[in-house]
């Protein structure tokens, strides 16, 4: 009695067929690879000049999230990205790419700057999630994530978001609401980490692999579900095997996506972006006539 569309049936069949595909766990591992290129690695290769915009003008400068004013193919853009660290000291300083509210406040400031000068925004998403600490909570982690999402909704400049590693939960989405959303081939994007999902649903975080198979945080699943617009190729073996090649693939995809986003008239862009996300979701309708099972 719940009427579902052919599209839902197709999705279910596709996912059931691919139940054990090895790529899922491989992607989880590659997305988290210690040598995977981070935001600044791509910034160095993509931008001819860059100036780091630091600080939230309220509390501190959260180095887990960086914002840049940068020149990209002769055009000024604002870049916003999570930033993990390479060695232990940098990892600690950057909190493993997990922002506090101040990081999102800085992102909002960067969006505001882009908006005032009409600069396109490029975001690079790579976080296990927002930092789940007492101080972060006390300073309004939830509200600041919400306000960051809202800032991206309100922007009338072109926004292209790319998941370049871990797209973890609301902490990722906070800077991932774009006119175009891309995912690198071996990046992951999910509502919770596989470990977190396993801990809750299987009552055992050791079942992360099982959880990953079940909830499919892969680029391919996201594309199938209409959540992203394009998968960006990586060098064979993953982006870390050849960062320069990965940057070249990313560059080509970003230029195309930016060009597509720029086609949308500025006056319609906010409504169009809203409409894009409005259609995300799958549901059925209770219906007297139908006999279709989910």
């Amino acid at each position, binding site marked *: *009695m*719940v009427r*579902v569309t052919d599209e*839902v049936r197709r*999705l*279910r069949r596709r*996912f*059931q067929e691919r139940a054990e595909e090895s790529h899922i766990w491989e992607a989880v591992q590659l997305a988290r690879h210690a040598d995977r290129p981070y935001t600044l690695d791509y910034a160095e290769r993509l931008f001819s000049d860059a100036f780091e915009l630091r600080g939230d003008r309220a509390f501190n400068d959260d180095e887990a999230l960086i914002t840049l004013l940068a020149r990209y193919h002769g055009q000024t853009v604002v870049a916003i990205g999570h930033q993990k660290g390479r060695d232990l000291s940098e990892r600690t300083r950057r909190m493993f790419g997990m922002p506090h509210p101040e990081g999102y406040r800085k992102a909002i400031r960067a969006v505001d700057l882009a908006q005032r000068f009409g600069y396109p925004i490029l975001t690079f998403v790579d976080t296990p999630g*927002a*930092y*789940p*600490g*007492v101080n*972060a*909570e*006390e300073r*309004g*982690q*939830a*509200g600041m*994530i*919400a*306000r960051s*999402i*809202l800032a991206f*909704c309100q922007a009338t400049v072109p926004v292209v978001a790319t998941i370049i590693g871990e797209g973890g*939960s*609301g902490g990722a*989405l906070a800077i*991932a*609401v774009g006119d175009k959303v891309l995912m690198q081939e071996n990046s992951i*994007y*999910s*509502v*919770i980490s596989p470990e*977190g999902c396993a801990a*809750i*649903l*299987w009552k055992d975080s050791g079942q992360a692999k099982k959880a990953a198979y*079940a*909830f*499919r*945080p892969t680029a391919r*699943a*996201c594309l199938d*579900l209409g*959540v992203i617009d394009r998968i960006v190729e990586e060098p064979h073996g993953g982006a870390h095997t050849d960062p320069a090649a990965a940057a070249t693939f990313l560059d080509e995809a970003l230029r195309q996506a930016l060009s597509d986003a720029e086609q949308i008239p500025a006056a319609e862009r*906010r409504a169009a972006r*809203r409409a894009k*996300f*409005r259609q*995300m*979701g*799958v*549901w059925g*309708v*209770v*219906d007297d006539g139908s006999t279709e*099972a*989910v």
Partner: protein
Amino acid sequence: MTPVEIDVQRPKGDEGGGRRHPNTCPECRSHYREDELRHALRVCAQCGHHFSVGAYERIEQLTDPGSFVEVGGDLRSVDPLAFVDLRPYTDRLLDAELATGLGDSMVAGQGRIVGRPTALAVMDFAFMGGSMGSVMGERFCLAADLAIEQGMPLIAVTASGGARMQENILALMQMAKTVGAVDDLREHGIPYISVLTHPTTGGVIASFAALGDVVIAEPGALLSFAGPRVVEQTTGEKTSADFGRAESNLRLGQLDSVVPRRALRSELAKLLMLFSPAEEEPTGDHAPPPPPSERAGLGPAERVRNLLRLRGRRG
């Protein structure tokens, strides 16, 4: 109990374990008959503890009798990912609907509060821990659509453990989708009041729930992005007893007001008046909340019919 709850539920007064009766106060152990608890707006007469309130009962508490009309009541979650953890998602959905009589974790529609029309989006924690999936997101947007079409405010009442893991990335996208609806409200100059009840956590508090033009909360409600258990397990930090509670949130600048349930209807009526145009002076009488009665909108008969259909399908 749904899986989501383990993230957000902090035992209150009964750490010793053991299931308490739902009408026994977890704070002071007072026990109430169902009708007397319902009549008391599910507030403990002894200690003021606020029990959970279901979506339709909340709508009864707040709106003028017979004024509520539901939208999107025919939407149902499906299972595009063919998700199976310890049990299939479709089984969980069916159980939730059978147990609660709800089609999902939010009821959307419009009604009147002391005479003033308003759109409503009211969550129910009993439906899979108030988790946010595709149906909840769409229902919230439908409520926002109503508000925009008819030029009336939107009031959201939340209770949620966060996003629904079984819909994974689609659940996450409901954060963007519902915030988009708030953006739509803002672009149209429509007032939006957010009422946070115990618990509102995860993807719900980090999206539309935090973005009210006015944000109020019920006393004692846990309102945080990460629940205390996640914080302690992930960071090793200790959380205090008032971690994430409404009163802490007020002190920390995240709320405009903590309003006891008995005052909620009149406070919302005042806000609807304040948000109404200058020409229109208040006309409604500030009557006390209507006595509990049959819920407005979709009737119980129709609800049961839907349930039977679903059961029939699975049987």
